[in-house]
């Protein structure tokens, strides 16, 4: 709890201002819905792109939300790709829970189970177990 609370605060108080430091590999997120009618539905790509038509100088919540989702995915990929990272812990990270929440909101049936995977340059680097929407 201490680390979870204080590390982000310290990072804000002592920022490093490293913007657009280096290029990173392109990732794609896919999800799959498993409903009672069909247990092998196709993979659907999660839209992580930004649309210029949504751009607002004052209240730009849609694009900022998209930025938050993308940086969450990037932070998660960085963490799970670290040496000595125990892959079983990937689903315990806060970033995983946020991503799961984003996908759950894309699915309109409360009865559906879903799983998702992340591809980095066409390699699958993570595949979740089946998740069920729950508050």
């Amino acid at each position, binding site marked *: 709890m201490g680390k979870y609370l204080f590390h982000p605060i310290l990072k804000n108080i002592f920022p490093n201002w490293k913007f657009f430091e280096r290029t990173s590999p392109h990732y794609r997120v896919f999800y799959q819905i498993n409903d009672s009618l069909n247990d092998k539905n196709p993979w659907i790509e999660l839209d992580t792109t930004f649309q210029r038509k949504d751009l607002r100088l004052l*209240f730009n919540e849609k694009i*900022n939300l998209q930025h*938050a989702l993308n940086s969450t995915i990037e932070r998660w990929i960085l963490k799970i790709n670290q040496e000595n990272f125990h892959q079983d812990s990937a689903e315990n990270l806060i970033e995983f829970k946020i991503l799961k*929440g984003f996908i759950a909101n894309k699915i309109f049936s409360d009865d559906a189970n879903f799983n998702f995977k992340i591809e980095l340059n066409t390699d699958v680097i993570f595949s979740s177990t089946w998740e069920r929407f729950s508050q």
Partner: protein
Amino acid sequence: MISTETLALKQTILFFTLSQVIQTVEFLKMNKFFPKYNPWFSSAKELLQFKVVLWFRLILSMSLSYSMNSPLYFQAVLMTLFTMHLWTLVKMGGSFNGGSDDITTQTFLGLIICSVFNPVAGLWYLSLQLIYSYFAAGWIKIKNPEWRSGEALVYFLNAPQFALTPRLDLKNWNPKIIQLLCAGILTFELSSPLTLLFPSWTMTFLGLAGSFHFLNFLFFGLNRFFWGWITLYPALLYCSQFFKNS
């Protein structure tokens, strides 16, 4: 007659009020995108708590500019808003909008120094953070060969995880022109400390900096960066004239 530091402080607070109102309204409006549940909160109760804090934060943000005439009330509002800002970041898993969260924190710290200790010290803190933010960003870029060759600019303007669609495709542009654009960005960022040495250069620098943030807004949608950084411009303008006037 109003002193130059009071004027700079008032202008900073005015911009900061606007920036805080924008951030808070954005958080409130985001809930419409989550018909089932908000991914940052594990229960409906926690989400309700967050919304109540946001409404309170909105009211306090709007009162920030008006509270300047009463130092004690201003300090109380500032400290409460700062606590709410940090609390929001913790609730968002540590970071919501990267650099704009950081510049907001730095603005709070600078204004706290202004109100608790000394306005001039606070304005200097804000100016030095502003200069350092540009310089550090330029320094890490110039060390990277991808930025020196221009590849990084082409990449970022085309990266789906950063750039708005439709994107500005520089792939078919003359590489020399792209390299020149990169050199311009690096020169601009690394020249930020010169604003203190050559006060006559400050207005030009801030004009370029404002345009740079506006272009970042147009290509990457970074509106919070635009408002967050221009909030500190009155402080730098004041500090760049400090030795000339004293």
